[in-house]
């Protein structure tokens, strides 16, 4: 944690560096919003006053005020009055961060990332089915959640760990590292639809099919279950993308 704070303070000074004359309320707003969404400004952090903010960023007080009004409207900042009052950072829910990222992505980029994810993960499933020993696959049953599990966070973590485990079963460190990268990058987006009960049920079925295929050493079935899952998730994600982009 100490290490994270050290980089944060450097990132903080960049945020509060003068923004220049053409800096208008929108630019102030965007810079602060980005810092809040990325976690550089943490939940509960006190923001400088309007006057201080204006001086630090080199903009008029009215511009800083305008930006704060907009951040308040987005729910990213709360202002309290009286002694000990001021403007404080309100960190968005993790799901909102992901949706925020989705909103900045084009349809082409989404498809591009999904293609890479799909090829890497289906390839891992094939190799894992060839190479995994029965006792190694047995361990994966712990990652199959009961159909009535309603904790979306648990579904997301379990699915991420299932795919990482499948990557590790290829016995290739490079492939596994690539999947770690993919999970941190695209995996979080791909798990947005897990908030829907129907999608969770379908996912659970495909994950069970994947583990059964790995147990049986069935390369084609392992591939199919991952491919179907990624395709379905991307399909739902594209629909959600359409909504958040509008």
């Amino acid at each position: 944690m100490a290490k994270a704070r050290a980089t944060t303070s450097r990132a903080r000074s960049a945020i509060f560096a003068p923004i220049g004359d053409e800096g208008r309320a929108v630019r102030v707003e965007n810079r602060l919003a980005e810092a809040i969404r990325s976690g550089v400004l943490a939940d509960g952090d006190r923001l400088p006053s309007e006057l201080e903010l204006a001086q630090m960023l080199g903009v008029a007080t009215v511009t800083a005020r305008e930006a704060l009004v907009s951040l308040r409207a987005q729910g990213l900042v709360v202002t309290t009055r009286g002694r000990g009052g001021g403007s404080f950072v309100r960190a968005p829910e993790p799901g909102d961060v992901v949706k925020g990222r989705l909103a900045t992505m084009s349809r082409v980029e989404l498809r591009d990332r999904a293609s890479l994810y799909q090829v890497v993960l289906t390839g891992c499933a094939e190799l894992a089915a060839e190479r995994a020993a029965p006792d190694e696959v047995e361990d994966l049953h712990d990652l199959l959640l009961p159909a009535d599990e309603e904790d979306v966070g648990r579904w997301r973590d379990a699915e991420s760990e299932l795919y990482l485990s499948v990557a590790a079963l290829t016995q290739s460190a490079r492939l596994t590292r690539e999947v770690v990268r993919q999970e941190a990058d695209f995996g979080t987006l791909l798990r947005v639809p897990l908030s829907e009960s129907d999608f969770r049920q379908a996912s659970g079925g495909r994950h069970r099919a994947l583990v059964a295929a790995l147990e049986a050493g069935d390369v084609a079935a392992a591939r199919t279950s991952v491919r179907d899952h990624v395709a379905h998730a991307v399909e739902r994600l594209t629909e959600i993308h359409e909504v958040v982009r509008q």
Partner: protein
Amino acid sequence: MNIDVSGDCAVRIERHFGAILAELERMRTEVAALFASGPVTSDELSAQVEAGTVEFLQDPNLLGGGFVVAPDALSDRRLYLAWWQGAGRDFLGEAEVPGTGETMDYTRQPWFRVPERTGRLNVAGPYVDFVCTDEYVLTTTLPVYAGGRLVGVAGADTAVETLERMLLPCLREAQATLVSSTGRVVVSADPHLATGEALTSGRKEGPDGRLLSVVQTPPAADGASRTLSGWPS
């Protein structure tokens, strides 16, 4: 071909893994004493084991090492890895699920689960460790108890690449393969026997319950695969 030239391999294996075992036993004593003295926090645990672990990790043939707690053994955290690894001997603390940042539960990993179940020293792998190093490793772990309760495992990682460099010359001489307790190839003189491949199917334990075995490959004309040496011997 009947001359036993695997002696050199046995010596090298003992030198490396014997040193690991000696260190894990030392750490076991240290950690058991700490837990016997009352409730322990994550900071107290790290402070206790850091000096000894970092000293031990001066051996460049080790990838990482430390102490990993059993769930709820500490007073302030459920899961914790007092673990140092990599070239910079970086401190780990906790493992995260990529993307979500949630704490990853390592207790289902064989390096934790097997010694938890058997109560004995274990060598897990070869496997790709996505919890700690993201490398292809063998993990040696020793369970540690305090007050009759498992408080965690003392462990050390060895990269498979390190073992290949260390053992391939002597394995070639002996025409042999280093095999894990689950019958997986670790390093082989035979280039067609890939690391991670199952040499013996379904065997749970190596000969005589050994954690590592040096087995002649290919098997003799009568089909019997001769075990040349093992560890612990």
